[in-house]
């Protein structure tokens, strides 16, 4: 372990930095929490004495992943996950920064609660954690929160988590108010009335299973409403986990018009489609629901042309009791911290995305959009790093996950690319055993 002033050299690395487009063999030197130097020629003549040396054996050294959407379940639901277990899962997944949703118990809508999460995150001594705060008090969609004070306390952005702010006037006021302080609002784009009672994608599958569907229009309508509201404000707006062709097309057009909008998707929406819920597999029950194959392809298209800015894990831990239920009663959501990197790399291995673009979606893009330090390899920047074997084939084994909950639909999926080491602020917080 390196001390505060300790220096560590990562040699024989394939340096990957989406921000600068760097993809070269070379070395990287950290001092304390910072990156001191990096480059192809660094330590070409060997590492001087007094510097700890880590041989990367030609593997990829990239910025640590920034996961823009996670649920950590602490405070309140520690039987599902804690800040510590999520931190361990993040470390194993190459994630060095997590943004966590405010839908805990209590809900993060007060300054003291933002401070609580930040303190516990700090005490866990693993990865960076930036809490979101609620847009409306109690996530009730009625009364805006003290966004200015919450942001001063450290709220990274604002979201009502799994629900959209459905009242257009209240959301417009929230956008306007947030723009006063240049704050970001993140919307779960789903019309609650159209989605009401639905448990999966509307269509033939739902009909065969006898389940109530959620139309794709639920996503399109709410998103397009928000886009209209954005026309008259300078607010920063980010749409969470897009899943449908039409919504992605709406964002594409809005960006072409110059609107201030960014959006994300999550691995299930490009790695799976609605057939995954066949046989009533509650582990594939999500919100928004897994959609049809053409929607899945549209998500990949959106990532290719940059309409979709970033990929977040949408980590949503649930214990067995919340998932081993009739489909209608089961909770929505899957865990994702430990599968974010291999599933994102799938897009590289199957030829959908260049490697640096795939990494950008989980590093520099979230850093830019949420205005975070990190997400890049740069001199003087935070030494948040992931070392991974790009080509290593393995099978996802949920049983070995650090996450307290095991609700993943990706168990036993063959993937390529595995995390070897994760470095947070210059300190190795995960090293894969040989």
């Amino acid at each position, binding site marked *: 372990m390196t001390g505060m002033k300790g220096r560590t050299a990562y040699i024989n690395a394939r340096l990957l930095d989406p921000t600068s487009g760097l993809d070269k063999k070379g070395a990287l030197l950290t001092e304390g929490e910072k990156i001191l130097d990096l480059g192809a020629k660094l330590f070409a003549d060997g590492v001087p004495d007094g510097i700890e040396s880590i041989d990367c054996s030609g593997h990829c050294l990239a910025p640590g992943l920034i996961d823009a959407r996670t649920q950590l379940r602490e405070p309140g639901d520690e039987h599902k996950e804690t800040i510590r277990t999520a931190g361990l899962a993040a470390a194993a997944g190459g994630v060095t920064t997590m943004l966590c949703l405010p839908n805990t118990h209590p809900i993060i809508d007060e300054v003291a609660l933002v401070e609580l999460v930040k303190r516990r995150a700090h005490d866990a001594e693993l990865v960076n954690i930036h809490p979101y705060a609620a847009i409306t008090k109690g996530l009730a969609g009625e009364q805006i*929160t*003290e*966004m200015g*004070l919450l942001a001063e306390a450290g709220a990274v952005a604002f979201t009502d988590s799994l629900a959209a702010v459905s009242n257009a*006037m209240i959301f417009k*006021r*929230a956008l306007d*108010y947030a723009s*006063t302080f240049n704050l970001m609002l993140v919307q779960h784009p789903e019309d609650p009335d159209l989605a009401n009672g639905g448990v999966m994608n509307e269509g033939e599958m739902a009909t065969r299973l006898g389940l109530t569907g959620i139309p794709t229009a639920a996503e399109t309508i709410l998103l397009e409403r928000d886009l209209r509201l954005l026309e008259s404000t300078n607010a920063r707006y980010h749409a969470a986990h897009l899943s449908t062709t039409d919504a992605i097309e709406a964002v594409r057009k809005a960006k072409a018009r110059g609107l201030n909008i960014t959006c994300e998707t999550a691995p299930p929406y490009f790695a799976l489609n609605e057939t995954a819920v066949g046989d009533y597999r509650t582990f594939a029950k999500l919100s928004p629901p897994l959609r049809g194959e053409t929607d899945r392809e549209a998500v990949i298209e959106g990532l290719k042309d940059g309409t979709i800015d970033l990929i977040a894990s949408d980590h949503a831990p649930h214990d067995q009791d919340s998932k081993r239920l009739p489909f209608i009663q089961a909770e929505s959501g899957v865990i994702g911290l430990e599968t974010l990197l291999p599933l994102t790399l799938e897009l590289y291995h199957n030829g959908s995305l260049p490697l640096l673009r795939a990494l950008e979606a989980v590093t520099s893009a979230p850093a830019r959009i949420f205005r975070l330090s990190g997400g890049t390899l740069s001199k003087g920047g935070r030494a948040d790093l992931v070392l991974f074997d790009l080509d290593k084939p393995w099978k996802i084994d949920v049983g070995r996950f650090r996450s307290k909950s095991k609700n993943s639909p990706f168990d036993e999926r063959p993937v390529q690319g595995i995390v070897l080491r994760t470095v947070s602020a210059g300190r190795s917080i995960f090293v894969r055993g040989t």
Partner: protein
Amino acid sequence: MNKIGSNTFFPHKNLLGMEGLLADEISHLLDLSESYVEQNRQANKKRPLLQGRTVINLFFESSTRTRTSFELACKRLSADAINMSVSTSAIKKGETLLDTAMTLNAMHPDVLVVRHPHSGAVKLLAEKVTCSVINAGDGSHEHPTQALLDALTIRRRKKRLEGLRVAICGDVLHSRVARSNIHLLNTMGASVCVVAPVTLLPIGIERLGVEIFHNMAEGLKGCDIVMMLRLQRERMNGNFIPSLREYFHFFGLDAEKLANAKPDALIMHPGPMNRGVEIDSEVADDIARSAIHEQVEMGVAVRMACLETLISSVANEGEAS
């Protein structure tokens, strides 16, 4: 019959707003007001200028200082003043605004001073009656005598209006005081900015000739005048702001934020103040810098000038014809 509005200096029958008034007309009212300031400080404050004249103060919205100020202005000029407020008027019995106006008009008042919660209501009434009308505040539209008394206060302290930098801070959206002040100050050559959260600024306010800020430190930089607006507590229900404490933290005037203005910047507030919401007591009560009580004093002088100007304008024309 009296012809209307032929005073050379102020050729108007009514005073409904500051928008559209010329700099000379505003200066005339301010100059005349100035002459009443001294009179109001004498032991005998009464003059027989408007003896025999009748003024009706018709208030459809509660008011203490404006109504009292108009009533005193009438009495000091020896006019007969009658106060009607909504609680005692026939409006309560279902009479329409225009019927009330026509009823009062039939009693031959010289001036109706009207306050109404709805924008444009005073103008509607003024179109129906033959007497002069002074707008004592209509909805979120205008409050011209407030703008005049603010201007008089500034002019006496700073010796000018032209070239001054004025920050108007707070709930501009719902404020008739802000609108009247913006019109007056722009007409008189001052430079005006507004400082407020986006939710409390009306769309297109920059088209009225103001610069917009959402941060007090930036907005107050280099200001000669810091004009605070009252925040009505019910604004929280409409999601305009999340809480009073957040509002005070970011937009309440305290010594720290005031330090961004010029060292001799004047603090103003139309009242009634919410201490600890839009203004900290430390600055509100700062004798050297707060002009808040002076504003109230100037109010009486300004209203005397307005009453005299409108009545004499109509009367002179009447005698000449």
